[in-house]
């Protein structure tokens, strides 16, 4: 047979053999060929769905959803110096952003400064804010009173980054009660998010997380003080119910802590926001977001006896799942991201942190960052998908998937409870093992082709025929500039004021009676560094000043 004949024999064979799979992809649920009214006999519209904006909010948290306002369009930015990051933010702002999203660097994630002797990865991923000066440069041109800013950083350093942001606003004379934005501030996922500090001190973590929440309840009603993260758990290739089960278990720990402090459920619950991955398995993903709204509403109303409808509204933002994307034929990822975006929009998301298609290869280039934004915009303005709230509501298949997701999520929550709650599940190593098994199963499915990925484990072209995508490079001078600025800031600050502020912070952190945020704010204002502030709090809790055990505290505490 000639080569040409064999190629077309393949065409013929594929034509005959290609058929849709019989599982709802990641849920792994065998699903029927078609769903009909009898499959959703259980559905009581008022009880199970409600209209959008009505308990249990399955169909969306607002009556008119995107006709009232589109989801906030964000792109995560963070690299090089604060000025580099600010420049890219401004470029994207011109291209259509409606909110900002700033990534902190590894040093900041560790609660350390860029001049730490072992510091590395400075400016490679995220932007460092070792002092207030960095944050001032970063936010220089941004009208904080008008624009919403998200900082996706975990506790403990979240408390400091939050304080740096608030201090910039205060120095500008702004009314902080009008500030809009989010600080991620969730510590329990630290070990799973791959960016947590190398130590875990739950007592310190929970104290700071709770302090940020409490402070915002009191002073910043428009700010999201916690963004419980499901996205990092999704990266272990979990199913939606597994991710949701973990997410809600974590949320409950923080709710319980807030209640323990004497706060009221109706003050606390509305302050919780969630950050999830959106995957390209469209119907399952939409069903998952719908189920999540119903589940949260039920938990808040039935378990916590909330009285206000606002408490029962599940507010969430998404980023497209990076693990859905691959470096082979990188432009294919634009399609994957589009499907992820569709799923999020039809699932009623409040904010989307877009993903660039070259994510598996590098930080976004100027061009790919723009394309990421365009994906959101094309879905918003050209597809018509946002015009009607919950467009898949009433679909026999999607209502069936929503109910199944809900059932399986409650099972997962129960399973976690049996392991001692999420804390017990983490401390015993059970959750680690669970996630590891999930990864292994996925790799096996990838290797066997059971989970098909076009251009990767099927239909793969030789590497030499594949385009070589442009890579975003960081200037080699950026780290030096960072270090210069830090040195200057430390040299020119009033060291007496730093010592005073740090001293008070130490005492208050040791006493653990008061909210620490006001004292962190004072230290930030005096230009105490991130490392100095975090180190001081660590010492007050009985831990090493430096989690890497190299530096000793420069301060003498009584």
């Amino acid at each position: 047979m000639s080569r040409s004949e064999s190629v077309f024999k393949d065409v013929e064979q594929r034509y005959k053999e290609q058929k849709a799979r019989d599982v709802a992809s990641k849920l792994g649920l065998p699903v029927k060929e078609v769903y009909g009214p009898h499959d959703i006999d259980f559905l009581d519209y008022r009880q199970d769905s409600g209209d959008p904006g009505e308990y249990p909010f399955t169909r969306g948290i607002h009556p008119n959803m995107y006709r009232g306002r589109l989801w906030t369009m964000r792109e995560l930015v963070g690299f090089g110096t604060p000025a580099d990051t600010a420049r890219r933010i401004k470029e994207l702002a011109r291209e259509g952003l409606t909110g900002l999203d700033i990534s902190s660097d590894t040093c900041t994630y560790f609660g350390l400064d860029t001049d730490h002797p072992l510091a590395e990865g400075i400016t490679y991923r995220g932007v460092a804010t070792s002092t207030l000066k960095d944050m001032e440069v970063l936010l220089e041109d941004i009208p904080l009173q008008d624009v919403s800013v998200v900082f996706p950083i975990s506790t403990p350093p979240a408390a400091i980054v939050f304080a740096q942001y608030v201090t910039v606003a205060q120095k500008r004379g702004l009314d902080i009660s009008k500030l809009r934005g989010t600080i991620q501030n969730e510590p329990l996922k630290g070990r799973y998010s791959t960016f947590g500090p190398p130590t875990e001190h739950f007592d310190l973590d929970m104290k700071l997380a709770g302090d940020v929440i409490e402070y915002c309840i009191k002073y910043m009603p428009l700010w999201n003080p916690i963004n419980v993260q499901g996205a990092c758990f999704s990266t272990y290739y979990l199913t939606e119910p597994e991710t949701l089960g973990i997410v809600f278990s974590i949320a409950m720990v923080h709710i319980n802590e807030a209640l323990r402090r004497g706060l009221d459920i109706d003050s606390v619950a509305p302050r919780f926001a969630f950050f999830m991955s959106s995957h390209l398995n469209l119907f399952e993903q939409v069903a998952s977001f719908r189920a999540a709204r119903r589940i949260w509403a039920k938990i808040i109303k039935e378990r916590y006896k909330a009285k206000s409808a606002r408490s029962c509204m599940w507010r969430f933002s998404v980023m497209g799942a990076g693990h859905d994307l691959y470096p082979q034929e990188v432009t294919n990822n634009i399609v994957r991201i589009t499907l992820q975006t569709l799923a999020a929009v039809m699932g009623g998301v409040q904010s989307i942190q877009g993903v660039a298609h070259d994510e598996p290869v590098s930080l976004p280039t100027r061009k790919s960052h723009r394309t990421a934004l365009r994906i959101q915009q094309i879905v918003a303005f050209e597809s018509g998908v946002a015009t009607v709230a919950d467009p898949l509501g009433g679909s026999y298949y999607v209502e069936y998937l929503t109910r199944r997701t809900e059932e399986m999520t409650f099972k997962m929550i129960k399973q976690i409870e049996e392991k001692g709650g999420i804390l017990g599940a983490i401390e015993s190593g059970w959750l680690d093992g669970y996630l590891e098994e999930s990864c292994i199963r996925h790799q096996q499915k990838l290797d066997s082709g059971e989970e098909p990925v076009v251009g990767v484990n099927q239909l793969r072209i030789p590497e030499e025929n594949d385009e070589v995508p442009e890579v975003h490079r960081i200037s080699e001078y950026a780290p030096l500039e960072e270090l210069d600025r830090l040195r200057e800031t430390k040299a020119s600050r009033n060291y007496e004021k730093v010592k005073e502020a740090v001293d008070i912070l130490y005492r208050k952190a040791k006493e653990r009676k008061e909210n620490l945020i006001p004292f962190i704010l004072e230290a930030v204002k005096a230009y105490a560094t991130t490392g100095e502030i975090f180190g001081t709090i660590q010492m007050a809790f009985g831990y090493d000043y430096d989690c890497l055990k190299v530096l000793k505290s420069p301060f003498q505490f009584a």
Partner: protein
Amino acid sequence: MGKRRVLLAKIGWDGHDIGIRTIARMLRDMGLEVIYLGLYNTAEMVVTAAIQEDVDVIGLSILSGDYFGVIRSVLEGLKQKGAEKIPVIVGGVIPRQDVPLLERMGVKKIFRQGASLPSILEAINTL
């Protein structure tokens, strides 16, 4: 020939360990001797352990963007200790345009997302 011995490690502050943990488990399940150093190692720790444990292959996982620095430090460390014969393979986020330079520096093979376990196993068994 005894069990193939492979050392798996991440260097520096890079905390992305899903890939390396999955590979470690799967290789172990396939009967290899896996010396798993995990996170937060220095190049020196990796080189020392590799020599002490008499490994057949060193596998590094790099998702921080700092692959040149990490790879250079390990290759130089091995050279200093006269152990440059130990092959080094790398998994992670590494742009294709940088692969030729890394291979010239001495990396034997680079694996990216979507790499199959059989291909990684083959590299370990034949290098």
